[in-house]
């Protein structure tokens, strides 16, 4: 009986320390796990076909392809997704994007605001953060201080 309480107490202590440590480093905490799972599902369904199941992006993503368009970039440490604030990433997913130097007018990154709920957009952006290094997460968290997610995307506690 004593042993069981010892294990429970240890697990609780380690969990609290771990979550605190993760928050300090800008790492998504275990409290976010259901949302991260939701974000991963959204990513797999809508994003992976262009950006890769592991977020690896398209080959030669830094050069225009034969259509004169920049291919989908990777979302991992080698890409630049981590350089954008939450507000900017939300906007890109919601409203879409095309590089201004593309030779075509179409949105190469489609707009998902008619497809995804605001909370789903936020979840998928938060999932992308799991692909970054700790330093990149810290940088992105700093950038997001002045440019957070729109309030409409913040899930209301049940």
């Amino acid at each position, binding site marked *: 009986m004593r042993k069981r309480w010892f294990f429970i107490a240890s697990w609780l202590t380690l969990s609290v320390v771990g979550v605190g440590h993760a928050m300090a480093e800008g790492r998504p905490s275990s409290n976010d796990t259901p949302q991260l799972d939701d974000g991963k599902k959204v990513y797999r369904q809508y994003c992976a076909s262009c950006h890769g199941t592991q977020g690896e992006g398209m080959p030669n993503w830094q050069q225009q392809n034969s259509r004169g368009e920049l291919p989908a*970039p990777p979302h991992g440490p080698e890409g*630049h997704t981590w*350089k954008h604030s939450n507000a*900017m990433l939300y906007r*890109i997913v919601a409203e879409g*994007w095309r590089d*201004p*130097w593309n030779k075509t007018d179409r949105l190469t990154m489609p707009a998902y605001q008619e497809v995804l709920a605001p909370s789903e957009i936020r979840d998928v952006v938060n999932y992308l953060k799991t692909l970054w290094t700790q330093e990149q997460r810290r940088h992105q968290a*700093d950038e997001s201080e002045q440019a957070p997610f729109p309030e409409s995307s913040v899930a209301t506690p049940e």
Partner: protein
Amino acid sequence: MYNIKSRFLRVFLLAGLVAVSLGSTSTALATEEGLLSLHYDVTGKRLFKIEANQLFQRTDEGMAWNAIPLPEDVTEGQLLAVSVPYTDSQTLYIAGTSIGVQRSTDNGETWQELSANLPSREVTALTVHRRQDETLYAVIAENGIYQSEDAGNTWKKMDSGPSQKVNRLVHSDMEGSMQTGWLYAVSDDAVRLSMDCFCGWRPTGELDAGSVYDVAYSLDNPKRVYVATQQGLWRSETGGQEWQPVAGDGTVLVALTLSPKGTLYGLNQKGKLLHSEDEGQSWTYPDA
């Protein structure tokens, strides 16, 4: 056999001498050109020139260059850049190798060092944001590009920068950026461009014009960009996507800037000021 060996040796030595002299010539030119810089202060309607480690100013209608007092430690380094906020002409920023970034808020009467938060004082280029007076970008040699959003008091590394050494950095408010604008980085071989979120450096259009010295853009129409090269002036109407040589009098400029009225100002290799009222086709000495 001896003759063949002797001839081979002579040719080899001669080729070596030519190679060494060519190399030293190009180094000397690059060094001389690196000393010169030109910047137009929109609010104060004046020009700044860096020459021989000194900073000079003159109004765009004036004739004489007046020296601005600099901090003593500038003599220990190499002054490379001057930049002025777009709505505050009393504040000057200077930067250079072994100088770091320094600021004066009284037009050069007093200076304050701003490098405490930077990894070194080896700054090769500096620019102020086109729309945000307190946002600065500094290139640290062999390190990367740092941004300050509080007039240089604190800095944050934003990017490793292009792999080539950056000699000039210019912020533009040209449309199309994910963030607030763009940064032009001038290296010896090319002009490169990045959105100011630093999501990748892209080469600008083909520019087969030898060494590249400086870049300037039109404040009214930021897509119009000029670049000064070893083979004269080139212009783009697309922010640098394509370049066309400016058909002109062949004047070579090593520093370039543009007034809001559209007057182009440049420095030749001797540091003499020239200006052009016809988009770079002809150049004259305003002092003449």
